[in-house]
């Protein structure tokens, strides 16, 4: 039985519609108008124990709403959620005991107090045995170097430090499941790498199940095998990261630096996507056009100074999916 099971999840929000202008505001005050907005529309998926799943989608797709329902903060309009057999909002406290949540945009540390004070408090909240507590603190010291700022008030920490402290706080009670909500937002490259490494390490060592919400595709590529893409409240893809790359990553871009000015370049199956002086960006599909043929023909016709081949990154693929450029085949989705 999967650890997390979501079936036909729906969440509607009631929005207060405000009218424009002064008269409009008065009208809204006297006769409020409401509008229902469906944030999550019939989402289903299941996650096995120890899996690491990337949960992505554009802003407003319904990711956070889904995560909030999984944690039990929000009550679903319809549909069921089962986390290890518990319903999150009915068994909020028992569910919370097994969860760890990291928000990149928010801290759960006590703002005015030193980091260590929050940790001590969490020890009592989650009833963490003294030994586990000590072991975990030591582990976080080794991996996240949190001892450098343990006794500083949280408000004096840098974003990178705060994030590390927040992650440590969420993992202190050895949760079975961790939700990461944009854990690397605003961090520099080195700090991001450190966070990813740590997350991977924990998943491997402790077999923790993880759900990852992010806009940074690097996070997904470097940590998750599986990816769920949602848009406008519905699942549009659920499968491996590799698969999406193979299926949609067939286009290549050949950047050619010509020796002379080439103004009227045409070739079947090849599209000029950009140009700058004597440099041209040529897009083609690797199944339609053989790269060796293309290069051969180019060298026959023109003088070439240099060329490079670019493979599309997952980020570009996702961008195209969001913009509706790629239509996902129904058969691709495991749970569509």
């Amino acid at each position, binding site marked *: 039985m999967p650890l997390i099971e979501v079936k036909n999840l729906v969440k509607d929000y009631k929005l207060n519609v405000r009218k424009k202008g002064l008269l409009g505001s008065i009208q809204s005050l006297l006769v409020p108008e409401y509008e229902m907005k469906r944030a999550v529309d019939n989402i289903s998926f299941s996650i096995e124990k120890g899996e690491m799943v990337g949960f992505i989608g554009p802003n407003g797709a319904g990711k956070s709403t889904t995560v909030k329902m999984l944690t039990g903060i*929000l009550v679903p309009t319809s549909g069921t959620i089962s986390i290890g057999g518990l319903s999150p909002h009915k068994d909020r*406290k028992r569910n919370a005991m097994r969860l760890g949540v990291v928000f990149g945009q928010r801290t759960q540390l006590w703002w005015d*107090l030193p980091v260590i004070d929050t940790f001590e408090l969490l020890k*009592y909240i989650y009833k963490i045995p003294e030994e586990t507590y000590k072991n975990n603190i030591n582990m976080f010291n080794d991996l996240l170097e949190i001892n450098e700022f343990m006794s500083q008030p949280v408000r004096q920490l840098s974003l990178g430090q705060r994030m590390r402290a927040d992650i440590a706080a969420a993992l202190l009670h050895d949760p079975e499941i961790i939700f990461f909500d944009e854990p690397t937002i605003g961090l520099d490259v080195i700090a991001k790498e450190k966070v990813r490494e740590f997350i991977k390490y924990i998943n491997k060592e402790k077999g923790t199940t993880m759900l990852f919400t992010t806009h940074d595709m690097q996070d997904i590529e470097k940590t998750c095998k599986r990816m769920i893409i949602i848009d406008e409240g519905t699942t549009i893809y659920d499968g491996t990261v590799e698969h999406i790359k193979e299926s949609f990553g067939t286009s290549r871009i050949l950047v050619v630096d010509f020796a002379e000015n080439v103004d009227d370049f045409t070739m079947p199956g090849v599209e000029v996507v950009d140009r700058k002086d004597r440099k041209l960006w040529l897009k083609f599909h690797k199944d339609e056009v053989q790269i060796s043929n293309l290069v051969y023909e180019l060298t026959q016709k023109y003088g070439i100074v240099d060329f490079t081949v670019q493979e599309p990154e997952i980020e570009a693929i996702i961008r195209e999916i969001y913009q509706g450029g790629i239509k996902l085949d129904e058969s691709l989705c495991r749970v569509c």
Partner: protein
Amino acid sequence: MRAYVEFAKKAFQINIAYRADYIAGVINAVVMIFVNISIWKAIYEDEQAVDGVQFKMLITYIVLSFLMQCIYGMDEYFIEYKVRSGSIGLDLLKPISFSGYVFSYNVGILVFRVVMQLIPAMIVSIFLFKMYPPFSWSMAAFFLLSAILGYFVLYNLNFLVWVSSFWFYWTFSLVTIKDAAVMILSGALLPLWFMPQALVDFINLTPFASIYYVPISIYLGQVPMEEIALTLAKQLIWAVGLFVAGRLLWRSAIKKLVVQGG
């Protein structure tokens, strides 16, 4: 359970950090008592008693009322802030009871105020204003019990107002109205002795008298021994009734919760 004790300790710790606020609190209590006593002095002029109420008794009433107000102060916008900023979501992620957390936080504030504000203000008041001691030892004990019940009544009443922020987001007006109602109807400012009978009859149907008037009356020995049990029971019923109402409101608040932002 230990977690809640820790919450109270943290509240104490945070309060103690604001030293200027603490000193201002003590001065404020003493000044308020002084001003009110001066007003009553002007009303009494040289009379020994007005409406059959002795001046010294009135002084005692006023001093007690303000000392109680000083320690009954709670963080009125604690929940509202959490609702508006959305940080309530983080609190609900913890395996704790949110209302228990709010209560222990306020207990932390209460302990802080008893130790750091009530004691100095009380010492000053006893010497400066020459108030009466409790009517008797047993009445002193009943007063203490009644004051604790009064705190619960006020707390649960406040809790209802605080939780309403789930619907209103801004509760400033509501808190102000509630404060005014408590000030007047609970006899915090003006003892109920001076109020018209019709109003007193009405007040007796509300929980307000249980907050200040009842404990102070017991202190002054105005509640006969045989009525003590009934009086305390009435306070208890109000505390429990408001508590149940708070639980119900809380439950529907959770249902309608829409976490802001994020």
